[in-house]
């Protein structure tokens, strides 16, 4: 089984990526990078990462979230985060990245914020 499974769904012009697994150095980080690049290539620039089923993330995974955010911003898009687990929230606090990302607990609130 893959380290990280990413399912894609569309809500209007927002692409939601439901992520399930681990975002760690190697396979997990690469899967996220590849998906974000593909979406940007397809002109999908409003992206919501649902991290509710991501049980584990390391510094490489945090770095990949930052790279994804930067890559989407560069294309004048927006990347936001949904359903952070307590562990991921703690890691974003430790790294002082909580203020960088727009973070939501409710999908409908997150989707409205893109409008």
């Amino acid at each position, binding site marked *: 089984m893959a380290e990280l499974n990413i399912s894609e769904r569309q809500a209007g012009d927002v692409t939601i990526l439901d992520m399930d697994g681990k975002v760690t150095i190697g396979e997990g980080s690469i899967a996220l990078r590849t998906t974000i690049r593909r979406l940007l290539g397809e002109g999908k620039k409003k992206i919501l990462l649902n991290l509710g089923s991501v049980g584990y993330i390391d*510094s490489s995974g945090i770095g990949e979230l930052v790279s994804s955010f930067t890559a989407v911003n560069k294309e004048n898009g927006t990347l936001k985060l949904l359903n952070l687990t307590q562990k991921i929230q703690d890691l974003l606090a430790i790294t002082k990245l909580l203020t960088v990302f727009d973070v939501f607990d409710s999908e409908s609130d997150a989707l409205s914020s893109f409008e």
Partner: protein
Amino acid sequence: MNKEKIEINLPSRLESIDKAVVEATDFASRAGFSEEALYAVDMAMRESVANAVKHGNKLDETKQVEITLKNSSEGLEIIIRDFGAGFAVEEVPDPTNPENLMRADGRGILFMKTFMDEVEWSNHARGGMIVKMLKKR
């Protein structure tokens, strides 16, 4: 208390990181550490072995990462040695500094320091870098 010490040598490839994490968390679990401590050991081990494999040994599979796990009355001691050129830990930029916030890398040492009670780096007399970490009981 069950005193124990194990030594593991792993090749410098990314797969070794997971292997090292499993060895360390199994060891800590057998030594009676809490779930919270196991998560901390998992995080710190992952970052330190990733540093050794990627930055120290530069993914050169002919170079080993040497790991020692020790259970003592003080806690769990983890020693990791690579065979790279070494680095000065004080020269690693602070990833929480606003000018470094958007960097894709450089957070591993912060995680190691956050999740362990003590972390220290030194140069091995015969080359390579050693990191010693302690998780207290």
